[in-house]
């Protein structure tokens, strides 16, 4: 089985210049929480719901998460408001693991399990061609195994 057989029908794609609010709307509208960031036909990164949340968490909470207990009640709303005009390229992860379309599905599965990825973008000769998700792989595997 190859990853090209497990491609998502309509991959979740955003432009690097889209706002984080537009990304959040996309996450809420579909069933994928990780988007491939594509400029033209080039993959430039991936961005997930966690990356959006990371923008809301001040560095000191990463140093001592217990401090979240003493922040004032409206802190989260105020921080969220600051994201209004922030663009996707500020939050995205640029160093992305990708696979070519003729890679084995097992390689994608290994990335999901060992590296915790939820989506693996598929790139052919530098060109973004789609993505596989845990769901799309399971769907392919389930379709080929009898009850």
């Amino acid at each position: 089985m190859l990853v090209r057989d497990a491609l998502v029908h309509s991959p979740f794609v955003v432009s690097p210049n889209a706002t984080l609010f537009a990304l959040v709307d996309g996450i809420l509208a579909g069933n994928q929480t990780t988007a491939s960031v594509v400029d033209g036909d080039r993959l430039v990164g991936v961005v997930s719901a966690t990356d959006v949340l990371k923008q809301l968490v001040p560095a000191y909470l990463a140093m001592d998460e217990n401090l979240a207990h003493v922040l004032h009640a409206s802190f989260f709303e105020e921080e969220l408001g600051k994201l209004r005009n922030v663009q996707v390229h500020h939050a995205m992860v640029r160093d992305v693991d990708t696979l070519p379309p003729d890679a084995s599905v097992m390689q994608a599965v290994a990335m999901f399990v060992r590296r915790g990825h939820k989506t693996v973008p598929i790139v052919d000769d530098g060109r973004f061609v789609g993505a596989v998700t845990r769901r799309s792989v399971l769907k392919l595997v389930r379709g080929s195994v009898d009850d």
Partner: protein
Amino acid sequence: MPAIDHATVHGTTYWLAATLFVVTFVLIVSEKVHKTKAALFGGALTIALGILSQEEAFHSPHFGIDHGVVFLLISMMVLVNVIGHTGIFGWAAIKVAKLGRGRPLPIMLLFCALTALASALLDNVTTVLLVAPVTLLIADELDVDPIPFLLAEAMASNIGGTATLIGDPPNILIAARARFTFDDFLFHLTPAVLVIMVAFLIALRVFFGKRLRVDEHKRQRVLAMDERRMIKDRSLAVKSLSVLALTLVGFTMHSTLQLEPATVALTGAALLLLISRGEPNRVLAEVEWPTIFFFMGLFLVIGGIVKVGIVRDISAMVIQATGPTADSMKTTAFSLLWFSAALSAVVDNIPYVATMNPLVLDMANSVLHGGQADPNNLPLETLHAPVLQPVWWSFALGSCLGGNATAIGASANVVVVGLAGRAGHKITFGRFLKFGVPTMLLTLVISHVYVLLRYY
């Protein structure tokens, strides 16, 4: 003690040890190679090339690894790791911020006092690692620049660490070689540090007094914080504070009990591991092993240059330059104060102190025993001779306080600059210098006057 092989002095072994020391020191200072790798490799070569015998390297108290220092450091790191996980420090910091009524200047001064106190009892790096996140939070809530707070805390940590035997690694090293007790440090250095700390807080007040203003509703955010929510494990907090208190009592009584500081610390650390829940793996994994191995390698390299007589030769030059006599070592003491500070501002003060320790011992032997005694085994009355005391204390003050001058002068500074950067507040080398050099000069002038008034 194994006899020094005089046949090899100024022979191959002498120059081999000298080269090994210089190369190791340059590698450590240049940071081209991780300092632990450099020190360990230098240490291993010291044995492999026969500069030190294996017996001397592993079992000699004079040339080899000082296991007392190693166990003191490991034990204190274990105690600190457990305490750090209880949330007690965050609780204290929020409590103190509320005590300052949510006003920035009192908070800055109180945080500095808390940091200095904690640094005197724990290690400086851990203290700033604990106080910096709370500082960033408070500054965020008050909407003020956190950088002055963080800089002041790094400096308070270096000042506070100077006060006690366990506060700063140079003091641990000096205590080990000069056989000073915990109480000796309380008696000789703590008063100086108290004066320095008061002057430092006054300087902060003068400098920042008018600049730090916030409006009422931001102040109220701090006052509304519930510090009790910072405690992660109440039972462990009580246990670890009790063990820390017992350990500190043990430190103050260690000479009466005829126990080394390392024994006291090890007992405290082992007791806390025993009575705390959970596996020891996590706590032991968080011990700063690179620092521990750095010390081990360093002891061997320095042991090598002591054994072959390099230290004795340099000591002769120092004696010629500063003219210490059996009646007064005033010039030596003050030269050491300022020289140590200048050097500690730019290089790691641990290898510096480890190198200078045997030099002071050799000088004491030359001046007080005509060079006839064994410098590595001087009697206590020589080590603690009234004429030598100001030399030791000037050495400690200079080495610890010099680190305040630059962003790389002390580990606490490096950590604070790193944490600030992670939080999006870049502290440039220049900005650190502007704050650090005046602080170093202030604390050094006070130290100079203190030594002058107290010992001369």
